[in-house]
């Protein structure tokens, strides 16, 4: 009983192991079978989670917009997504003329694969994660960017001008925002001294990296939202204004897979933010009772996900040149500076404990203040540039009118 509480996942694994051994299977096959089982459980788990996520997001967005949201199918409308799924299953899969069938069919599968693959390295609780590899951070970057490839495939194989244009703009946005994301990821790696997700979580035992490196956390959060293409940054597939973008020629569940991938990706970046900056499963008593760790992880991830939805409900869509400039002229330089500052400060401050944290926090806040000051100065010049010609114009127009 004690073991169930202190190490439930190891206990369960041991149970399955001894069960399969009892059937007289070879150890190599047993580990393969258990790995396959784990992969299936994880893959199915996150995909079913998406059904719930879509419902939750619609419900929260509805509350933000003073609506009720889905409330007919099941209690609180929780089965609404299931109903949508059933509807989508019975839709016709329309293939446009001249589509390049191989890439066209591969694109939605790759989109889902890249997101599901991310979950392999996220530690859900102590001793509960798919794979403890020592290059977890870089794995997240490389697998996550495969969704770029899937969008590119969808765009070039659809034989549609709008799909191609939408795909190119989305790809431009995603590769742009991948730059600050990667740079921000170096900061927790540097602080933990490891690229492994497990070590990064362990290292946050005393203090979350959010406190030590708030700038990096903010940059990671913003750029991953942009990477997923969610609302402040969804100008490339703005449903309310444009034709859909890269997935215009997809129908039925082929489209549904892009949809699932996007929603799941939004949740996944919440889980990644939690793991990298909010201490993952760390919390009081989590090390002794892993199930408590799973609970903490779920709570933190849900909170971050709520913030993601909140951002979606509150912010207006930004313009494409603004999106571009925000990345290259603000976030990327800031990520570079924040990385350098963290690297130098961590080496200069030899004291541990509160002093180290204070110096880091101070440096980051100073950086934020400087950024805000620069932004203010910039916006002032912009306002002057916008206002003066306008006033000059109206004045001359007025003069010409009065002259006549």
């Amino acid at each position, binding site marked *: 009983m004690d073991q169930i509480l202190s190490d439930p996942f190891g206990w369960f694994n041991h149970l399955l192991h001894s069960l399969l051994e009892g059937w007289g299977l070879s150890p190599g096959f047993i580990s393969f079978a258990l*790995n*396959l089982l784990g*992969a299936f459980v994880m*893959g*199915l788990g996150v*995909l079913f989670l998406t059904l719930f996520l879509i419902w939750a997001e619609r419900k929260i967005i509805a509350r933000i917009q003073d609506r009720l949201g889905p409330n007919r199918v099941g209690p609180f409308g929780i089965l609404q997504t299931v109903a949508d799924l059933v509807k*989508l*299953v*019975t*839709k*016709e*899969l*329309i*293939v*446009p*003329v001249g589509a390049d069938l191989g890439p066209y069919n591969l694109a939605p*599968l790759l989109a*889902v*694969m890249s997101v*599901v*693959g991310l979950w*392999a390295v996220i530690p859900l609780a102590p001793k509960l994660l798919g794979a*403890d*590899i020592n290059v977890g*951070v*870089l794995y997240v970057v490389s697998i996550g960017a495969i969704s770029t490839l899937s969008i590119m495939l969808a765009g070039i194989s659809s*034989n*549609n*001008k*709008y799909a*191609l244009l939408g795909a190119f703009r989305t*790809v*431009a946005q995603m*590769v*742009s925002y991948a*730059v600050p994301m*990667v740079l921000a*990821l*170096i900061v927790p*790696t*540097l602080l933990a*001294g490891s*690229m492994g997700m497990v070590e990064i979580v362990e290292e946050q035992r005393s203090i979350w990296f959010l406190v030590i490196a708030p700038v990096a956390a903010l940059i990671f959060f913003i750029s991953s939202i942009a990477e997923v293409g969610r609302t402040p940054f969804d100008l490339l597939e703005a449903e309310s204004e444009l*034709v859909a973008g890269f997935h215009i*020629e997809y129908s039925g*569940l082929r489209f549904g*897979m892009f949809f699932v991938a996007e929603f799941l990706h939004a949740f996944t970046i919440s889980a990644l933010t939690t793991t990298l900056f909010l201490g993952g499963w760390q919390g009081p008593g989590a090390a002794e009772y892993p199930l408590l760790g799973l609970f903490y992880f779920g709570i933190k991830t849900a909170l971050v996900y709520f913030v993601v939805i909140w951002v979606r409900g509150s912010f207006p869509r930004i313009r*494409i*040149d603004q999106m571009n*400039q925000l990345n*290259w*002229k603000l976030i*990327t*330089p800031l990520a*570079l500076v924040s*990385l*350098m500052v963290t*690297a*130098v400060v961590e*080496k200069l401050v030899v004291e541990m404990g509160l002093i180290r944290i204070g110096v880091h926090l101070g440096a980051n806040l100073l950086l934020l203040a400087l950024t805000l000051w620069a932004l203010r100065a910039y916006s002032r010049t912009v306002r002057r540039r916008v206002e003066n010609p306008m006033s000059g114009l109206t004045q001359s127009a007025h003069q010409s009118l009065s002259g006549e």
Partner: protein
Amino acid sequence: MDGQWAFIGLLLIVGLILPAVVILFNWLLGPRKPNSLKNSIYECGIETVGETWIQLKSQYYIFALIFVVFDVEAVFLLPWAVAYDKLQFYMVLEGVLFILILAAGLMYAWRKGVLEWV
């Protein structure tokens, strides 16, 4: 080590197969009545004109280019960050120099006006 990578490989394969199965279900259950109008290219109801391969701006190339350069930079910096605890101060400064050299590239692109969306 091997078991971990095996899990990742299996998860990626599962991640490919599951949506394929779902789409297969859709293909089996959904109607299949293609006609030329339905399968034509969708452009909000207007007939499509000309070839799909429209001319795109070379600016997309520039963004991808900067991404390539910074991606390679990150790949060099990540091992540096992993070894951080064992580094002496001048080694950290060498990493900072590495970042600064590439930041100069970003500054050049900025001054050249490449980063403006046109």
